[in-house]
């Protein structure tokens, strides 16, 4: 049919769009739904279970039926409600959940089989034979289930998130919301007004009442103009507040570019976290339908939606319509549509004393009991005074009363309260603190009441914040309170839908009752009521009422229904906030990162860091070749490696030594100035947690290192100890990890190389600067540096630290200066091989499940002092643990050693019960010329020389290994001290 007169569409411009491949045209201001209606398209979707043909029910975000796949390619967006898809030029949409065409869906056979698909049927069958569930039944069910499709491509659009803070958040820009915003904004408070629609006004846009002496749209425009001029108010259109979280935090999604063909450089959507001292919930109300047989025919919709389509979008679903109502509000639709030239076939009002409020036939005391027209309504059956008749009409508007849209008010699990007069639930008083409901969302649905309650809610909120509110002058408005008659469904034989999308009928509720699935949650779960994309917005209260009829209890006794976030569906893209792919988490780069890159290094993710894994050279064809070279070069000459990623914490204060003494299980207080000591930290439960070195730079100044992985947690723990456990100590902590570039120089030529860069006047000879010494000095002509003589590789080794900006140049200098000494950069792979060769525990050994005893460090745990974890490390269970860290070497050097293999006594049966340990780390040792490993073996320290079996059933491997000392290289440590 052609457009009606009026409406808030821009007829001067046309927008072209397609639906299921057919091209149509609409206007700016249209939604996809209104534009389709204007093009005589009533059939828009299929239901979930029975694949029933469906049209629009609603005009807003509560729509359960008209779901489409919007856009195409990687931008394909399934399950989009046509009622909230703002029309743009070139929009393309397709119907979904069908095989074949929308009007001929092969899966509609489900509808014929519906007696077999009653509530809960699938729990009772498909069990035999067992294998058939996964092979036959379930695949068939899965194929048929689901709604729209994903594109299977990455979302190409950008998303971001942001944070807003305000005194008052007003949720909803209808009469109540605008009054609230105006009241608050004039008082000078920081106010945010958010509305999901692209146009402010809410229900005012759908009605014809005057506000004062002007049309509502004029009043809205005036308010908008004033609000726009106030710097303390922010209007957020196309913004859905989807969740009320703790302490006044609200989640909201702004659809920045969904109304455009493409975002064009902007984020498509923004996720806002709004921290509001107070909020007004002015989200309006959602009309109820009244189930009767075949009430899901396309063309049957909510009367208020029908009125909205006529008044705001200038469309009617048919030339001749009927209304079915239990209250006065339904009559408004008849009056408004009649005024637009639509023929009113009749208003069927269940109230026996109902009177026509305009020029249309009235069926007082009447009920609509059936409907015909599979793909589009053609006639309805009206029962009145015991007689029934069929009336021709192309559309039926239903008004069963209004449910306050209290979704957000129940996000803290507060139970809505039943209001007998309104015949609906209203927001509970124990809703989210600071959230005040107003207007129709609070059951104050007349325009006058909405305006008034909105302003009052804002005033109350501001008063609570000690801000004085000026009540605005509110226009005169209609103040009709429409009290619905209690009519929850029309009894009859046919199927009467309660939840449209999920195909839950009155019969299903009766069956649930019959089968004792009566608590509301059982009802919902048994029938899937309220689980569809509209989350029961149009179904739950009606279902409760039907159940209450069956149980003979009142509605509130039968149960209440609450909602959980989100209010409407929120795309995962925007919830993710745009941090995808390589920016999922920040990369931390080492001071020599750019240098390593220029050297062609291969990088590896190590916790938050990117580290050079190895440095391939031309001609090397396999990473192992590179790593072997790096290891051998280090052991033979000198290797250089960036070890900046280890956490560094500066510990100062008079009690620094005592503090560290309590943190580490071994003693730190006795450490001499200018020396370094290995330290092992336990958790309070006695398990080894982290290790590193403590360097004492001065009597009251230490620098300690942590492992790369635990730098954050260890620092937190140190602050816990400082502030909470020993607050009376004089200790100051600060992380200095990033401040210093720290480079390991290891190998027999290490000292010779360092002597070339250390400034004159500093003696680093073996005598002057022995193993485990440390010093502050200068290098390369006056650059401040710290030098530590420590070794992870087992070689003569140092770590030199300089301000991070010089790390790059220092690395270049070391490689260049040490060329003749065989200076070779090495990465984390070679580092790993060398530490295994030396038997040093690392992350795989310090996995949070190993005790100091297991690591062979039991004796480090001092009994002479109290330190974290010391007491618990002596518990019976830990003391009885016999597994010890050992070295493992294959009897046949050609055999692999694989980390993750389990260890067994040779020849023993292999089961969990006979399990003797596991291989924690393994690698190829060029030094040994075979794979080697570290592992934990029961009584390992007593089994050196024994041949055991490493079982790796995942790869079908059984390897004979010899138990050896974990120190494959230089077991007596001579190299360290040379």
């Amino acid at each position, binding site marked *: 049919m052609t457009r009606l007169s009026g409406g808030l569409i821009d007829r001067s411009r046309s927008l072209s769009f397609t639906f299921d491949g057919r091209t149509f045209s609409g206007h700016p201001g249209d939604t996809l739904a209104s534009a389709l209606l204007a093009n005589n398209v009533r059939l828009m979707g299929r239901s*979930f279970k029975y694949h029933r043909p469906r049209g629009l029910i609603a005009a807003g975000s509560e729509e359960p039926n008209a779901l489409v796949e919007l856009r195409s390619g990687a931008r394909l967006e399934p*399950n989009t409600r046509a009622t909230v898809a703002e029309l743009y030029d070139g929009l393309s949409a397709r119907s979904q959940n069908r095989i074949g065409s929308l009007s001929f869906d092969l899966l509609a056979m489900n509808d014929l089989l519906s*007696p077999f698909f009653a509530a809960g049927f699938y*729990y*009772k069958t*498909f*069990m035999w034979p*067992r294998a058939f*569930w*996964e092979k036959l039944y379930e695949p068939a*069910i899965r*194929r048929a*289930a*689901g*709604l729209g*499709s*994903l594109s*299977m491509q*990455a*979302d190409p659009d950008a998303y971001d998130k942001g944070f807003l803070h305000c005194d008052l958040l007003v949720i909803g820009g209808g009469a109540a919301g605008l009054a609230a915003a105006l009241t608050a904004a004039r008082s000078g408070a920081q106010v945010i007004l958010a509305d999901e629609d692209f146009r402010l006004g809410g229900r005012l846009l759908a009605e014809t009442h005057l506000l004062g002496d002007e049309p509502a749209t004029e009043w809205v425009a005036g308010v908008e103009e004033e609000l726009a001029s106030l710097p303390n108010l922010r209007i957020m259109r196309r913004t859905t507040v989807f969740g009320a*979280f*703790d302490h006044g*935090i609200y989640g909201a999604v702004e659809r920045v570019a969904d109304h455009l063909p493409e975002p064009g450089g902007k984020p498509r959507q923004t*996720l806002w976290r709004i921290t509001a001292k107070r909020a007004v919930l002015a989200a309006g109300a959602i009309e109820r339908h009244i189930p009767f047989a075949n009430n899901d025919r396309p063309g049957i919709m909510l009367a208020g939606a029908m009125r909205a389509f006529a008044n705001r979008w200038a469309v009617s679903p048919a030339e001749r319509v009927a209304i079915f109502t239990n209250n006065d509000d339904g009559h408004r639709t008849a009056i408004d549509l009649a005024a637009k030239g639509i023929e009113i076939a009749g208003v069927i009002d269940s109230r026996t004393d109902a009177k026509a409020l305009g020029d249309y036939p009235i069926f007082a005391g009447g009920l609509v009991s059936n409907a015909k027209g599979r793909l589009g309504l053609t006639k309805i059956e009206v029962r009145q005074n015991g007689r029934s008749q069929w009336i021709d009409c192309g559309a039926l508007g239903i008004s069963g009363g209004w449910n306050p849209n209290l979704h957000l008010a129940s*996000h803290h699990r507060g139970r809505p309260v039943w209001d007998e007069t309104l015949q609906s639930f209203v927001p509970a008083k124990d809703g989210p603190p600071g959230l005040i409901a107003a207007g129709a969302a609070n059951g104050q649905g007349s325009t006058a009441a909405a305006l008034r309650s909105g302003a009052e809610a804002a005033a109350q909120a501001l008063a609570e914040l000690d801000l004085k509110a000026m009540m605005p002058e509110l226009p005169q408005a209609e103040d009709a309170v429409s009290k619905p008659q209690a009519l929850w469904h029309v009894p009859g034989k046919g199927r009467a839908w309660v939840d449209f999308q999920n195909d839950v009928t009155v*019969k299903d509720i009766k*069956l649930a009752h019959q*089968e*004792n699935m009566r*608590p509301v*949650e*059982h009802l919902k*779960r048994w029938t899937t009521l309220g689980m569809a994309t509209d*989350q029961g917005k149009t179904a739950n209260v009606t279902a409760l009422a039907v159940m209450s009829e069956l149980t003979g209890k009142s509605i509130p006794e039968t149960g209440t229904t609450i909602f*959980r*976030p*989100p209010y409407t*569906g929120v*795309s*995962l*893209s925007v919830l*993710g*906030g745009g941090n*995808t792919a390589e920016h*999922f*988490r920040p990369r931390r780069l080492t001071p020599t990162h750019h240098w390593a890159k220029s050297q062609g290094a291969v990088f*590896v993710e190590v916790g938050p860091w990117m580290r050079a894994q190895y440095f391939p050279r031309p001609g090397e064809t396999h990473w192992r070749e590179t790593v072997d070279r790096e290891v051998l070069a280090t052991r033979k000459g000198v290797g250089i490696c960036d070890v900046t990623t280890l956490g560094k914490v500066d510990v100062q204060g008079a009690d620094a030594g005592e503090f560290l003494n309590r943190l580490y299980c071994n003693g730190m207080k006795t450490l001499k100035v200018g020396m370094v000591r290995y330290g092992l930290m336990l*958790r309070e439960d006695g*398990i080894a947690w982290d290790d590193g070195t403590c360097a004492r730079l001065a009597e009251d100044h230490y620098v300690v290192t942590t492992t790369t992985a635990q730098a954050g947690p260890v620092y937190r723990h140190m602050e816990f100890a400082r502030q909470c456990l020993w607050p009376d100590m004089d200790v100051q902590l600060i992380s200095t990890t990033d401040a210093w570039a720290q480079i390991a120089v290891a190998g027999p030529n290490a000292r010779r190389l360092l002597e070339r860069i250390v400034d004159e006047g500093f003696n680093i000879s073996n005598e002057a600067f022995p193993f485990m010494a440390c010093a502050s000095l200068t290098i390369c002509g006056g650059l401040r540096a710290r030098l530590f003589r420590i070794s992870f590789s087992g070689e003569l080794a140092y770590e030199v630290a300089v301000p991070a900006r010089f790390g790059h140049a220092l690395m270049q200098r070391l490689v260049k200066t040490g060329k003749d000494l065989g200076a070779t950069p090495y990465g984390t792979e070679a580092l790993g091989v060398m530490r295994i060769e030396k038997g040093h525990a690392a992350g795989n050994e310090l996995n*949070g499940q190993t005790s100091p005893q297991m690591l062979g460090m039991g004796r480090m745990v001092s009994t002479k002092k109290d330190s974290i974890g010391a007491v*618990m490390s002596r518990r019976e*269970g830990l003391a009885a643990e016999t597994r010890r860290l050992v070295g493992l070497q294959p009897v046949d050097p050609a055999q692999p050693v694989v980390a*993750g293999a*389990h260890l067994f006594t040779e020849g023993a049966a292999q089961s*969990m019960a006979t*399990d003797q340990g*596991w291989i924690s780390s393994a690698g190829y040792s060029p030094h040994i010329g075979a794979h080697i490993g570290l592992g934990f073996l029961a009584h390992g320290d007593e089994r050196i020389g024994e041949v055991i079996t490493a079982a*790796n*059933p*995942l790869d079908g491997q059984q390897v004979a290994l010899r138990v050896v000392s974990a120190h494959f290289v230089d077991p007596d440590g001579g190299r360290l001290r040379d």
Partner: protein
Amino acid sequence: MHFSGFRVIKEALTGHKGWKPLWRNPDPQPSYDYVIIGGGGHGLATAYYLARTFGQARIAVLEKGWLGQGNIGRNTTIIRSNYLLPGNEPFYEFSMKLWEGLEQEFNFNAMISQRGVLNLYHSDAQRDAFRRRGNAMLLAGADAELLDTAGVRAMAPFLNFDNARFPIKGGLLQRRGGTVRHDGVAWGYARGADRRGVDLIQNCEVTGFRIEDGRIRGVETSRGYIGAKKVGVAVAGSTGRVMQMAGMRLPIESHVLQAFVTEGLKPVIPGVITFGAGHFYVSQSDKGGLVFGGDIDGYNSYAQRGNLPVVEDVAEGGMALMPMIGRARLLRSWGGIMDMSMDGSPIIDRTHVEGLYLNAGWCYGGFKATPASGYAFAHLLARDAPHDTARGYRLDRFARGHVIDEKGVGAAPNLH
């Protein structure tokens, strides 16, 4: 009433008039031999096995609200037996074997679907740990496969293999893992227990224990005193609240775990996939919704609801792992109260009160354990001895140093 395809057809043709209540609504009797507190999955399973397997009678399950109200109906429905430690793996594998015959046994289709559980790894260290775990699974008689990148790509080509911050290097796959329709489990056990004479008493809140001379005598409830020879407590997140009435402090904190589901979509995800470098795991339900979750919120809570940062964190993980889900919409979120234990493993044990038994500490992993937990708890209640696979779940393991800490994070409940 026996459920079957024939029955469904017969009822369909006769107007569904013959369907009977799934269970009775009995009033509580003055006393029972066994009172199980908690009508969730574990409590119902316990009653079921007590009656069915251990031949016990005079059993009641007391539920404060409606059957299945707790975490059994508020989880992400995953079943798996992919544990590392000998204290855990045999137990969870026992559970898996019980799952595998459950529906036929209790005559209720819980839609057990073994479409596989794939845990991704992103570093060599993770791979080594997974290999150790996979081997432990095989040694315990479970199934496991270690996949490399190509193996993962073949199973799930839609993951981000191209420009990930943490590249997928492979995964540990348990093909027998999968999902189960969570409510179906509660209802199947409830119906099975009811048919064997167990009284399932809803809206019956326990308000106190009657303990005399160190021995349990019964429980005070909102529906009056109920005597009991033995009382088993299986109340998950409410454990602290309930056991406080018996004067117990426990190695448990209650935390909130959120879970999420998207709008229905045509099938895209074959089994369960977990991200090893972010907080995200996902499966797709038979109805088409992507069911997913991540970490617990991290603070003590009894509120059954969580906060926005975790929602964002989980979505961020999901987008990093599988950017093709971006245009799907989150439909619903929910929060469950998790009884997070100090080592991440459960407790099935006696207490200091004779006749009072405790089943708790399931963290966020109680769903998959439901059959074995019920079975082992029934075993303990009926025979006063732990089931073989649950020997490690003792209360005194903390003080004695026999913790079962899969994650290796120590006494930090919010990190397990």
